[in-house]
């Protein structure tokens, strides 16, 4: 992701009220991390697995934080059980910031990733998780704040899948 886009993403998260982000780093959106780390608005929590990233975000959300989980698309599969048992069954609002690895518009798609991409939407739909695909940075502030409003209204996770412009190398 280009630096300017990473910067606009962080501003969008901040303006939408997100203040807690658990995460496992990945390749496509990673330029956000130094910016998030440098901004006191965010409690940035590095974890070892997307499965616990979901649980940790849930705990923070139940205590009043506006929580997000940043992960690679593969993390949606890793954390499916936790998304279902804590996010959906318990009903906890959290924003999933997902790099849509292996999607058709993924600018770094190869045979390593494509099988994840084509199963992402069926996986989210099976879990009952609302999602939006974001291919470019146009109007990113509104897209993030809409998702945050939806997660609070639904009281469950809502996913933003980033591909296209977001997957271009720096």
């Amino acid at each position: 992701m280009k630096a300017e886009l990473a910067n606009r993403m962080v501003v969008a998260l901040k303006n939408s009220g997100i203040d807690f982000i658990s995460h496992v780093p990945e390749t496509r959106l990673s330029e956000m991390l130094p910016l998030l780390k440098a901004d006191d608005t965010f409690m940035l929590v590095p974890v070892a697995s997307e499965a616990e990233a979901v649980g940790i975000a849930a705990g923070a959300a139940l205590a009043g934080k506006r929580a997000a989980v940043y992960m690679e698309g593969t993390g949606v599969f890793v954390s499916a059980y936790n998304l279902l048992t804590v996010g959906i069954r318990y009903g906890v609002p959290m924003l999933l910031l997902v790099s849509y690895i292996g999607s058709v518009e993924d600018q770094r798609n190869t045979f390593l990733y494509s099988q994840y991409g084509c199963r992402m939407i069926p996986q989210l739909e099976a879990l009952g998780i609302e999602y939006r695909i974001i291919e470019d940075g146009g109007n990113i502030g509104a897209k993030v704040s809409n998702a945050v409003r939806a997660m609070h209204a639904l009281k469950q996770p809502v996913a933003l899948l980033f591909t296209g412009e977001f997957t271009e190398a720096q």
Partner: protein
Amino acid sequence: MIRYECFEWLAPLMTDQLVVTSLSGQRVEWGHLSKREADLNLGSMGNALAVGIGLALALPQRKVFVFESDGSVLLSLFNLPTLANLNPPNMAVFVFDNQAYSGTRISYPSATAGKTDLAAVAKGSGIEHSVTVSALADFKKEATAALHDGGLRFVVCKIEESVGHRNITRSDVDLLETKYRFVRYLERTEGKPIFQGRG
């Protein structure tokens, strides 16, 4: 050591500490002995440690107790290095280790019945205060310290496999009711709104 006896002793001592429970008999027994709004019964394996970490980070002024089982911790071992590195000083984890998947009804042995030592795994992950207790008196010492002192504690409680919880009438308070009760309690005691959005 009998888990119910541990809880029977501890429950009356709890005040404003937050408690997260996972699944298994400890959920039923703690729910029977403690009717506090500050109790968060998750009703699932492999999530209580993570949710407890999130609560402890978001509310550093509150003490968070997590009651886990050996099977549940084994399902989520990645929590241990994360917990070690975050090192929340307001969190105490008690793992009730009966060395079996008791819910199977056939006492199917867990890894702790074999070669695995969860306190050693936690210690190796970087949790400095990681101990095993096998006697009620030692449990009381650790729990008393957790109530009154700071610092992350990870206490593996070796217990006998018991089926006493199967005779306890199960609560009809479902997960959503538990969640709302817990969140409204926090809103009241922390003086801040948690769930956004008005109808």
